[in-house]
C-alpha cells in the first residue's frame, strides 16, 4: 500500500529541468530514501510534494486522494510534515514555542479567543503543552533546552528541535531533508535511532533525502535514485547498490564498467 504516489512530475526553472517525468511510490509505514548526486532534483521533488512548487505536469496522490491542486499551507492538515536542509527554526522564539508551532494546524483558537485567553484557548494550550511534553520532548530528550532561544543551541540540537517540531504535527508522512548533514558519528547514530523509533513505534512513513550512504543503506526499506531530474533506479537498498546506472551516476562510467567486468 502506497501512502504517497507522484506520477510524471515535471518542473522547470527558466531553462533548467529540475524534475523530468518523475514518478515515485512511497510504501506506507516504511522508510524511503531519495538519493542522487548534487543537483539531481531531490529537494525539488520534496518541494513539489510539499506544495511550494507547482509542477507543470504530473499528479501527486496522498492516501488515495489527488492533492496536486492543494495549496502548500493546506498540506499540513493532510498529514504531511517536513524538515529543511538548512535548519529553518524560528529564531525569534524559544525551543518550546517552535515545537508548539507544529501543533498549529490541529488547534482551533481564533483571534478573539486568543486575546481573551479564556476557557477554550487556555485549555487548548494546556493540552498541547501536555502532548508535546509527553510525545515529543521526552522522546527526543530535549527537556533541558526547552526554554532556550534557538541561537543558543548547537547545530545538532537545532536539527533535533526541527524534528521535534515536525513530530508535533502528528503527521502520517514525515519528510526529512538531509537530517544528518553536518553531524558526527555519534549524532548521526542518535538521529538514526530517533528516525527508526518514529517509524516503528508511531507508524509514521518516513521519506529521507540523504547523502550519508551508510545511514541510507542501514535504515531504509526502499530507495529511489535521481539524477538530472530523472529517476534512474528504485528498489531495496541492496538492489539499488548493485544497479550499474546508479554506480555510473555516483562514481562515473569507468567505475560502472569496472564493476560490471
Amino acid at each position, binding site marked *: 500500500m502506497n501512502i504517497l504516489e507522484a506520477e510524471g512530475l515535471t518542473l522547470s526553472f527558466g531553462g533548467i529541468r529540475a524534475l523530468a517525468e518523475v514518478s515515485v511510490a512511497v510504501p506506507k509505514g516504511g522508510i524511503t530514501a531519495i538519493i542522487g548526486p548534487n543537483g539531481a532534483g531531490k529537494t525539488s521533488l520534496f518541494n513539489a510534494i510539499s506544495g511550494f512548487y507547482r509542477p507543470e505536469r504530473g499528479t501527486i496522490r496522498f492516501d488515495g486522494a489527488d492533492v496536486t491542486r492543494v495549496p502548500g499551507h493546506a498540506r499540513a492538515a493532510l498529514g504531511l510534515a517536513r524538515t529543511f*536542509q538548512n535548519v529553518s527554526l524560528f529564531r525569534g522564539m524559544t525551543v518550546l514555542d517552535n515545537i508548539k508551532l507544529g501543533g498549529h494546524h490541529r488547534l482551533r483558537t481564533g483571534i478573539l479567543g486568543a486575546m481573551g485567553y479564556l476557557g477554550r484557548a487556555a485549555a487548548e494550550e494546556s493540552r498541547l503543552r501536555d502532548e508535546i511534553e509527553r510525545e515529543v520532548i521526552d522522546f527526543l530528550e530535549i527537556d533541558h533546552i526547552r526554554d532556550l532561544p534557538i541561537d543558543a543551541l548547537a547545530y545538532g540540537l537545532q536539527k533535533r528541535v526541527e524534528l521535534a517540531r515536525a513530530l508535533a504535527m502528528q503527521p502520517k508522512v514525515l519528510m526529512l531533508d538531509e537530517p544528518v548533514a553536518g553531524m558526527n558519528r555519534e549524532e548521526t547514530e542518535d538521529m538514526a535511532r530517533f528516525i527508526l523509533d518514529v517509524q516503528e513505534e508511531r507508524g509514521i512513513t518516513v521519506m529521507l533525502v540523504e547523502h550519508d550512504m551508510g545511514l541510507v543503506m542501514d535504515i531504509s526499506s526502499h530507495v529511489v535514485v535521481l539524477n538530472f531530474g530523472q529517476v534512474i533506479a528504485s528498489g531495496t537498498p541492496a538492489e539499488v547498490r548493485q544497479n550499474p546506472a546508479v554506480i555510473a551516476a555516483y562514481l562515473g562510467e569507468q567505475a560502472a564498467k569496472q564493476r560490471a567486468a
Partner: protein
Amino acid sequence: MDWLLLAEFSLVGLLSGGVLALIALGFVLVYKGTRVINFAMGEFMMIGAYLFWTANVFLKLPWWAALALTLAGIAVLGAVVERFVLRPLAGQPVISIVMATIGLGAVLHGVAEAVWGGANLSLPQLLPRTPLTLGEILLPGQVLWSFALAVALIAGFTAYFHLSKGGVSMRAAASDPVTAYAMGIDVRRTQRLTWMFAGVTGAVAGIIVASMTSLSPTLGTVALGVLAVIILGGLDSIAGAIVAGLIVGLLESLTVAFIGGQARDLVPYLVVLVILMVRPYGLFGTRDIERL
C-alpha cells in the same frame, strides 16, 4: 470630444513623465544595488534643490557653478548616508533598513525646514519657456526641456551601467555581492557609488521640479508618488521605470484634463493599489523565485 485637447494633454503628460522616470531611476538604482526601497529619495531631491538655491540665489553663483557644487554636495551626502547609516545595518533584515531610510527622511526633512524655513522659495527659471508648436498643439518649453534632460541623464546612466567597467561591476555587486568580492570588485565602493548616483539623480530631478513649481520642504512628497511608477514598472527594472514614468505622467495629465486638478495628486496612489491587484510585479519586474 476635443481630440486636439486630448492630444495636447497626452503629449504634455508623456513629456512630464520624463522627470518621474528620472526619479524612478534613482529608486531602482538603490533597489537593484541593495534590495531596499529608499524612502528618503524625496528628501534627497529636496536637499538638492535647496543646495542649488543656496549656491545660485543666495550666493549668487552662476548656474553651472551652482549645479557643480550641488552635485558635489549631494554626492557627499549619499556617501555619508551609505557609510554611517546603511553600512552599520548591513546584514540586518530589509525591514530594518527600510525603516532606517524612513527615519533618515524625517531627519533630512527637519534639517531642511530648520535651515531654510518652511516658506516657499523660488528658483530662477532654468529651463527655457519658449514653447514648441506642432500645428495646433502647444507644448510648453519647460516640460520639453525637462524631458530632454531626463532622457539625457537616463541614457547616460544606462550607457555607464552597460558599457563602462565601473558600471558593470556595480551590476555584478548588486546581483551577487559575495561572488563580486571574490572577483576582486570592491563591493563597498559600489554600494557607496549606488547611493551617490541615487542622490545625484534625485538632486537633478529636484532642481528641475523646483524650478518648474516652487521650493519648500514638502518637495519630497513628489517622490512618494513615484513609488507608484516603480511598482508599475517593476522594482528592479530600469526599462520599467522609464515606461512606467511616461504612463503615470500621461495618467496624471489626463486626470487634470477630465477630472480636475485636485485629483491629480491622488492618481499615483490609486495606480499603486490597482497594479498590486492586477499585476503585482509590474510590467517588467522579475518575479522572485526563492531557493529553498
